[in-house]
């Protein structure tokens, strides 16, 4: 009988992150997985379309035997075999986030014996998911510094609801090594950028101007995409300083008030700039898995969210590794990953 590692999907915020982390680690460790109470606290519980695509992609890549994987399922069993590199194509329905699928299969593919090229079709800018730019500009450079041989190419943008975005991820077999963070000495480049397609010119200008009122902002940029990308808009605040980089996002669009978008970015900016720290809460969450795979490491960030704590618990459980969150006096928190 197979020994399944049981993961309670309702832990913490009970979102898709637990699902993605646990599946990725199940593939890597070869341990069979039983996830239950999936998204139990949400209004639409169970696997939604984008989760289903991610699980199916994982099944394809690890030749897993799975039971109960279907739309709306609140539990399923997942038994991975070996991870197969190679060429893959996944299409995500309903313009769901392409990056969520990427997140699930990115790390396992590093453990394959051959190189892989994965083309994912879907949305490149979705609420509640990392944008293409975040992956490209923030996460990937960190991973590359850890030794990951990966590249990401954007073929086409895709805004919700029409989607139609294309991204291609190439992954070569690689081993992640611990990363050494230097001391954070503040941001030297802080760029406000509004990326928009088929949005009024005034809206875009208004967004950039609003962010430029933040004293730390050094530059403003307006980027207009060709009309065929659909209707959509993201407002970015890009930050760079030493080894550190961050990207704060606000999602706009035809039905979203400009003020709402600006407010969302400003709120994040105030928090990050006020904390004087190089790793924001969202990035911290994303770094837990690769650093745990590397075996050890530490970085300074803000007080962890419930989301991060849950994610850390799941990673710790599957890898048998300790992840500690140590609060310091200045309201910050040191994350220490230690295999010992």
């Amino acid at each position, binding site marked *: 009988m197979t020994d399944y590692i049981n993961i309670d999907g309702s832990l913490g915020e009970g979102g898709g992150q637990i699902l993605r982390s646990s599946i990725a680690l199940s593939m890597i460790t070869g341990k069979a997985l039983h996830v239950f109470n999936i998204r139990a606290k949400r209004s639409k519980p169970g696997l939604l*379309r984008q989760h289903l695509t991610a699980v199916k992609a994982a099944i394809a890549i690890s030749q897993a035997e799975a039971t109960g994987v279907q739309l709306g399922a609140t539990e399923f069993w997942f038994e991975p075999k070996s991870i197969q590199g190679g060429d893959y194509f996944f*299409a995500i329905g309903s*313009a769901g986030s392409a990056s969520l699928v990427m997140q699930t299969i990115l790390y396992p593919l590093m453990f394959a014996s051959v190189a892989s090229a994965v083309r994912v*079709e879907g949305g490149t800018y979705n609420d509640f998911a990392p944008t293409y730019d975040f992956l490209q500009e923030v996460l990937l450079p960190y991973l590359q510094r850890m030794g990951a041989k990966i590249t990401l190419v954007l073929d086409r943008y895709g805004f919700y609801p029409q989607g*139609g975005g294309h991204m291609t991820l190439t992954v070569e077999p690689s081993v992640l090594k611990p990363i050494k963070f230097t001391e954070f000495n503040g941001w030297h480049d802080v760029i406000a950028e509004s990326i928009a397609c088929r949005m009024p010119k005034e809206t875009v200008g208004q967004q950039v101007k609003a962010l430029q009122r933040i004293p730390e902002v050094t530059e403003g940029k307006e980027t207009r995409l060709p009309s065929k990308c659909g209707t959509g808009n993201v407002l970015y605040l890009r930050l760079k300083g030493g080894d550190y980089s961050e990207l704060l996002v606000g999602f706009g669009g035809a039905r979203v008030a400009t003020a709402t978008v600006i407010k969302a970015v400003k709120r994040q900016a105030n928090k990050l700039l006020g904390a004087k720290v190089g790793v924001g809460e969202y990035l911290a969450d994303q770094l837990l898995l690769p650093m745990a795979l590397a075996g050890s490491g530490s970085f300074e960030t803000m007080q962890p969210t419930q989301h991060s704590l849950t994610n850390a618990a799941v990673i710790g459980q599957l890898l048998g590794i300790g992840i500690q969150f140590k609060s310091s006096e200045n309201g910050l928190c040191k994350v220490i990953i230690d295999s010992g």
Partner: protein
Amino acid sequence: MKKKIAISLLGTTLDKRYGQKRWERWRPNIALCQYDDLIIDRLELLFSKDFQSLADLIKQDIKQTSPETEVVFHHIEQQDPWDFEEVYATLHDFSKSYTFNPEKEDYLVHITTGTHVAQICLFLLTEARYLPAQLIQTSPPNKENPLPGTYSTIDLDLSQYDLIAQRFATEQQEGAHFLKSGIATKNPAFNKLIDQIEHVAMHSTAPVLLTGPTGSGKTQLARKVYELKKQRSQISGEFVEVNCATLQGDGAMSALFGHCKGAFTGALSARTGLLLRANQGMLFLDEIGELGLDEQAMLLRAIEEHRFLPVGSDKEKTSQFQLIAGTNRDLIESVKSGHFREDLLARIDLWTFQLPGIKERKQDLAPNIQYELEQYSRQHQHQLSFNKQAYATYLTFSLSEQAIWKANFRDLSASITRMGTLSIGGRIKMAEVNDEISRLLQRWSNHSITPSSKSCLTTHLPQDQIDTLDYIERVQLEAVLEVCMTAKNLSSASRQLFNISRTLKKTNNDADRLRKYLAKYSLSWQNIHPS
């Protein structure tokens, strides 16, 4: 997991959006394939050839937003999407030609696109299981629910639909209750009979034959059926009733079918006839067994073809009416003896309901006594009731073997009317009940339906006119004549007869009321007091 297959009409209005802006608009068939908790594995898209390019665009956009969905085209011929018959036939043909595989696939019928007519047809086909599917309704986005908006599914097989079905059941019960004049009858056989009549009356326009002994309530039931059908807008015309026993001789044809001016000697003006008056309404032919053979032949044609020839006319008239016939005769016997046409009987006894007499439904006596008291109270505008002991005595008697209720509910009604008239202050006491019991026993022992004081009526009216009168009418007329014969003059008689109602009126013209009452029977004060 079973595959999900959606069957949907291309929305020639809502789906018809072009240019980049189309992505900002709600297109039902695109939305259908975009929900994050529903994956349509195959979309069967129905449209007429004229909309091929729109269908192509929809297919392309679905491919982009829902790579899981295969779109299959079905060309349907549609001249007029608002023509119910055509649309139903087209969709019915589709359902017949489509191979359903319910073992492996679940079907959803999308009812958001298409004309209202198409939506109704899809509903009907799904309800009839021609389309073994659930219904799915997609709704446009709003503030809380951005694109693609929301959807809801309806399974007509499930409990949700039972609630609606229950409402129909309630309505049916209300209908039955109405047919019983609101009397809470307890006899199970009678209640079942009424349920059946309600069902037949509401679902059919075929003739109905009510049989049963005299006074079992045929006329009243026919009128109630008419009122119920009218309430439910199934019928718009009048309720026309006639006792065929009164249609004797030459006048019968013309009374039923009308005549044109000059059709015969004395036909000074045209006459509409009862059948034409009942057009779009209901014709109640009581004692249909009494109808002459010529009239039967004409009536049969009128039932079958809705056409008939008025007397003396060479132009046919048409009339659509629902027929209810009543009889207390055994019509099969009448057919055997040659008094009734076999083909007419075959035509009218498709739905035959035998109304039981009082003796077969004794449980219903108490509620009917109550009903009669209420009726009397309403007609006379003052409350009529029994005292406790009087009621117990009357009820015990009415249930006893002695009480044969020869004319059934007609006897009961007359009995209550008499007690009500004789009671003081609307209170029926022991004295009135005891008198009434002996009066009833006296009547029933006579073994004749004709009132005892035959002489009183026969001295003033010809026998054939008396024969057309209902028992209740005879009883009343008899009482009126008795008063008139003893009274000094018209005014004095009318004071006695309208003793209660006259006190309620501002001006009293009781003499005129009595004069008019007598005139109805072609009688006058002079007839009664020839001196």
